[in-house]
């Protein structure tokens, strides 16, 4: 198995936003598990780091939170994305796509220059 990827600065926030946008309301553990599942266990994620991200997003008004009860009857804090969170997600996702496009081209250029 190849070593797990370190998360780039800021990518965790984007993942959280996307997860909430796709799944609706979720608690911290649910968000963490969802990201792990989607990433196919390829990212190195200490589940604990998600809480710094959550508080950052909440303070910026991109997500909101409320205490509720989980499916197996545990009291948990549920997060959901706000309207401005969705707007932010759209722009950030767009920026991310542009960045990956650029990165792809840059890396492809490197390969192309290699002598055959």
């Amino acid at each position, binding site marked *: 198995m190849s070593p797990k990827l370190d998360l780039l600065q800021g990518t965790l926030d984007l993942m959280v936003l996307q997860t909430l946008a796709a799944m609706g309301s979720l608690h911290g553990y649910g968000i963490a*598990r969802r990201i792990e599942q989607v990433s196919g266990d390829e990212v190195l994620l200490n*589940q*604990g780091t998600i809480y*710094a991200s959550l508080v950052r997003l909440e303070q910026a*008004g991109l997500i909101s939170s409320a205490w509720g009860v989980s499916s*197996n009857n*545990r009291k*948990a804090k549920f997060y959901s994305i706000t309207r401005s969170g969705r707007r932010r997600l759209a722009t950030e996702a767009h920026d991310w796509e542009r960045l990956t496009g650029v990165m792809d081209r840059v890396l492809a250029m490197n390969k192309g220059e290699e002598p055959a």
Partner: protein
Amino acid sequence: MSRLLRALGRLRAFLFRGRHDSELDAELATHIDLAVDEYVEHGMSLAEARRQAMIRFGGIQQAREQQREARGLMNLDILLQDIKYTLRTLGRDPGFTTVAVLILALAIGANIAVFSVVNTLMLRPLPFRNAQQLVWIAPPPTKCGMSCATYSTDAYDEFRVGSRSYQDVTGYFAFSSVDNLSLKLGSAPVTATSIDVIANFFQLLGVQPAMGRLFTADDARNGAPPVILLSDPWWRRQFNADPNIIGKAYDINGQQTTVIGVLPASFDFGAVFAPGTKVDAITPLNLYGPPRNWGNIITLIGRLKPGISLAQAVDEAARVAPSMCWNNKYPDSCGSYKGQVVPVSLKNYISGKLRQSLIVLWSAVGAILLIACVNLSNLLLARAAARSKEFAMRGALGASRARIVRQLLTESLVLSGAGAVFGLLLALTLVQWLAHQGAIALPLLSTLRIDGASLGWTVLIAVLSALFFGLVPGLRMASGNLHETLKDTSAGSGQSRKHERTRSILVVSEVALACMLLVGAGLLLRSFLHVLDVDLGFQPERAAAIKVDYDDNVPNDKTGDLTTQKRTTIFQQVLSSVGALPGVEAVGITDYLPLGQNRSWGTPFPRGVKVPDNLAGPLVYVVTSGYQRAMGTRVRGRDFTWADGPHNENVVMINESYARFLAAQTHWPNNDALGQIITSDPKGDPKNDLHIIGIVDDVHEENTDGEAGWQIYYPVTQAGPTGAELVVRTSLPPATLATSVMRTLRDLNPKQPLAEFRPIQSLVDHANSPRRFFMLLVAVFAGLGLLLAALGIYGVISYSVTRQTSEIGIRMALGASAGLVQRQVLVGTLRLAFIGVIIGAVASLATARLIASLLFATSPWDGATYIAMAITLIMIAALAGYVPARRASRISPLVALRAS
């Protein structure tokens, strides 16, 4: 938008961090529980599920810290943490904390108090609206006192009309005497002091009444009903702060006078224009009544138009001056003010003279603060050395250097903050006390207070000193090698040597600063002693003066002879009755006392000799026979007698300086003025001849530390006095006679107000008060500096003895005697002190210029002072070093060696 939201969120999170923390804890607990549930569902045992959940979570504490950092204000959090920690460590060492805070409180308190004085006198504008526009208009300073600093009413009118630079020009009557009001309230009249001002005085200064109204031009007309404005303190003291006082009339000096207003508490005439005197009320000056012919009586104050510079005003005044007349009735008096009309800024007139003293004072407290900081630096260094293991340990556990320095600086800030708080309390008391020292003849003293600027200054010096005394030990500490420090178990290693070097340098600089302070204080003290030694020309001890009320008014007295006769009779009665009291040695009456107000009446000159232009005339005193004896002034020739009547030959006495000057202008036998004739009548009418019957000692009439000017004495039997001060010389302390003198005066004149029986010494003290004030303050600061330096020396030496305990023990085990050990420690102390004294002395020599202008008959390089101060410092240093030296010599080698 979201950035602002985040900032608010952070602040909220910081304020309610307790609630946020518990919420987070609950959330994290749920997280773990949910994970455990999931693992258990997959068939793990509960213990294994828990373990796996923790692994996946990756450190609860870390997550907590990360979240806190993301949500709140980390720096503030750290600060609070540091402060909490600092308070705990300081609380564990109450001795150190008390000493440190005390030192800082003294130094900071002294600095705040002096800053308030400097701010009030020098930095802050005068307490008037747009005070920078106000100017004082006077001739360049001369010997002849107030008469030469004043103008006639005609000159005032001409100047006011002829100048275009001013919004308006006003002035006040400069010759009001103390206790010139006699207010009849109930049975016994009480006295008070009032000043006559030109009607536009308050409007020009921009002072609004607290109640009632100000003067108008109508109040100063001929035949206007008498009105008066009360000062706030007098209104409170004498009239019980009567809120309905406006419009009430009182019998003042025999006239029903209406109170038209009460001045605001912020206006104190004495504080601004007559330092050290109390002015109770203000009355309007009628420019078009009798004052028209009184000559130079008005001081001028102007308010410049906006945009007009002082230089422009000076130019204009020089152009206007030649057209000003002393009296419009005498055309040849026009132009006599040429070169005598010079505007200066009012502020400069009031406090300009004090500038140098204030700078010296400010430097002195600055030095105190420096010494205190050096001391603190030393104390902290010693503490830091003792705590070096603690810091090394924290460093080993991952604290960065910056973090440790930050912690140390927080400690310094907490210390200096506490010092500043106590210092502020100290300064408040001091400033409160100073503001009520009415007897100190310093301007604006009563307006002294701790204001916003003083508070700002407090914060500034507290922070600066914290940086200063915290940074050195902080950097020293943080720069150490962790490994070395952890290994360094006791004395003798390189690190402690380095510390000791720093500490020695600090002590030397402390001693040098203390030396400079001591030299300054010594020079000021010597000057003050010289001033006390000055022969004032009179003997202030055992003499006192009291203002005597008399009524010499004779209706329809065309020639003035009847008035003179009546006055002579009254004075004769007063003098013979008071003179007969037991314990009274001599009595006499004068209209002006020395070191108080004065005036001049032209320049009597030898007949046929032309009076030089712009010559300031002698000061005039109208006295009775016996006055000179009562004052203790020697007379060569004869005293006045009651027989020197209005129709006899005019007689005068003049002082030595004036006699010498006159003799040099002409040819008198033996160059002696005694028995010669002088005259001030340009036409030379023999009726106006003055026969010099006595030559008296030079009396210091304006100040104690200047040159005595010229004086001329006229008898009350021939000239009109402006009042009567009865001078009594006693064989007992003057205060014991106060009641019997007052009773005698009351028996003769039931209208005699209850005036104060003032010792002549108090006049001298009043004149000396600014010098005494500055000398005392600098001396107190020097004492404080000396104490702090001694503490510093003691601290360093005693610390180094402690560190060297085992070394000393070994040396004593090898045969060094107790005396030798003691001597060595003492020599070490004295070496530091000597270096400090030498540096301090050199620095004093270099800065002597600063203090030179404040000295009297003392050289700023006065050898005796330098030597005395050096000896004092060395002795104090020896004393401070003796205690630890003695302790060193008592070290038992056995105990010392076992201890290490």
